[in-house]
């Protein structure tokens, strides 16, 4: 069983990612308002092996106190996940590294420890929103923005030297790009 911890701001598509991975509506999602308030586990057998996705409440929903409370909930469960991989989700259709994103990255680092980034993947959502000819540049820019920022806030000894894997998904549109693979197949490379 491969376990993945989903982290990211509210509204980036963590719960939708769960549903997109398994192809079933398991996690409750809401288009415009935060709805995931607790840590939820979704374990399923897929054609690409057993996968457990840990859905967490989104960050930047209100203030940093709330973020801290949410991340405390995550931290108490961390020890029960054997060899988990953290997936940090970020929307690809943002133009800048906005401050709420920075504060989310900061909170994750502070509350879960620098080591949370050691075996982390970056998942960019809303892939279908970006025009094909701009896709590569958008992915590069976004990856650099996030990785550079984590590099800044983590001490060098923490071992973050970039993301282990990078994936671009669209939780709604299937086959939105050439050479699309099922999300579960991508996760099975962990």
């Amino acid at each position, binding site marked *: 069983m491969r376990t993945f911890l989903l982290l990211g*701001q*509210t*509204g*980036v*598509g963590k719960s939708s990612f769960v549903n997109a991975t398994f192809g079933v509506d398991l996690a409750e999602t809401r*288009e*415009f*308002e*935060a709805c995931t308030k607790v840590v939820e586990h979704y374990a399923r057998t897929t054609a690409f092996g057993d996968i457990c996705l840990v859905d967490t409440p*989104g960050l*930047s*929903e*209100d*203030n*940093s106190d709330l973020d801290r409370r949410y991340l405390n909930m995550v931290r108490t469960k961390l020890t029960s996940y054997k060899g988990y991989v953290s997936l940090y989700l970020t*929307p690809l*259709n*943002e*133009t*800048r*590294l*906005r*401050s*709420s994103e*920075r*504060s989310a990255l900061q909170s994750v680092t502070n509350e879960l420890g620098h080591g949370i980034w050691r075996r982390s993947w970056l998942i960019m959502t809303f892939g279908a*929103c970006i025009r094909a000819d701009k896709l590569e540049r958008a992915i590069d820019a976004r990856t650099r923005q996030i990785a550079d920022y984590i590099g800044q806030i983590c001490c060098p000894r923490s071992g973050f030297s970039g993301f282990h894997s990078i994936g671009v998904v669209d939780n709604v549109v299937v086959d939105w790009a050439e050479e699309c693979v099922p999300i579960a197949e991508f996760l099975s490379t962990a």
Partner: protein
Amino acid sequence: MVLDTNNPTDPTHATEHALPPDVVRAAHDFAQRVQQAFTREFTFLLVGRTGVGKSSTINQLIGQDIAPVGDFEPTTISVEEYRLPIENVKFVVYDTPGLCDDLPEKGNDEEYIRRIKNKIKTVDCMLYVTMLHDKRVRSDEIYGIDLITKTFGQHIWKNSVIVFTFADYIRPDVFHRTLSERTRLIREVIGKSVPIDIVNRIPAVAVDNSNPATPDGTRWIDELYTTVVERVSRDGYVQYMIATAPEIIMPVSSHQSGSTRIYGSGGGSYVSGSAPLYMQKKPTPEQIARITTRQSEFGVPTDPKPRETFFQIVADKVSRTAESISAAVQKGWQTVKGWFNVR
């Protein structure tokens, strides 16, 4: 209207007798506002996170590139000021980089509020800019909205418009639902510190800085323009109209007898050399009705005949006091003469 000094009977007084004294007074007051249009400063305030399209929006609304469209990240909360004349009316656009960007400086709200108040005395219209395709109102926006209310007071929202950018990211079939949901949620955050009757009146307009129409087919520039007119401060209304759509604000017929032709279309000698803003727009009859509705605030009669007389008084008063307008606004007056086509 220009006085023919050879004419023994003063047509102005003949005109004024046709209206009740309070309407005449209103016409004089209106004329004064027309004149003040060239001395007063009209102030736009832009608020919203960096990268949401504030600069593109104001540039398109005004029809000139006044604010640089940049890719830089703000490093500090600051107030940027852009000045420009539109048809010789003085416009000031204040941009507030960092206000909604939740910067490290956050926590020092008092200092920032003091700095911003020091620079911006009055606001005629505030554009609160945010992306239509955002899925959440997140902490940075919540903080920014709260700071706006703290800085300017809740009344700032009476002269505000919510502008949703990147409308092209939304599929046509969910466009209306998205627009109304996003409007509801932004209003909800504003409503945390502002009375509900103010909040529920704040209009929202979806814009698309790369297409002339939003996914529902609306020509957004006309809709934004009209909505801004509906929301500008009372003092700013006549001024804004004089700068952007004199024909709509002063609809005196162009086929009057004699030498007087007021706001004749196209015949003006526009100092800037470019067509006035309203000519680049094509407001629908419904939008024009919304624009002119506000005239009643200034005592403009709605019936055609008294209405025409009202504007004759205004036009006459403005041209008769031309000489008394200071040298500083001479250039502005040239423009008015163009509009009035005074001979």
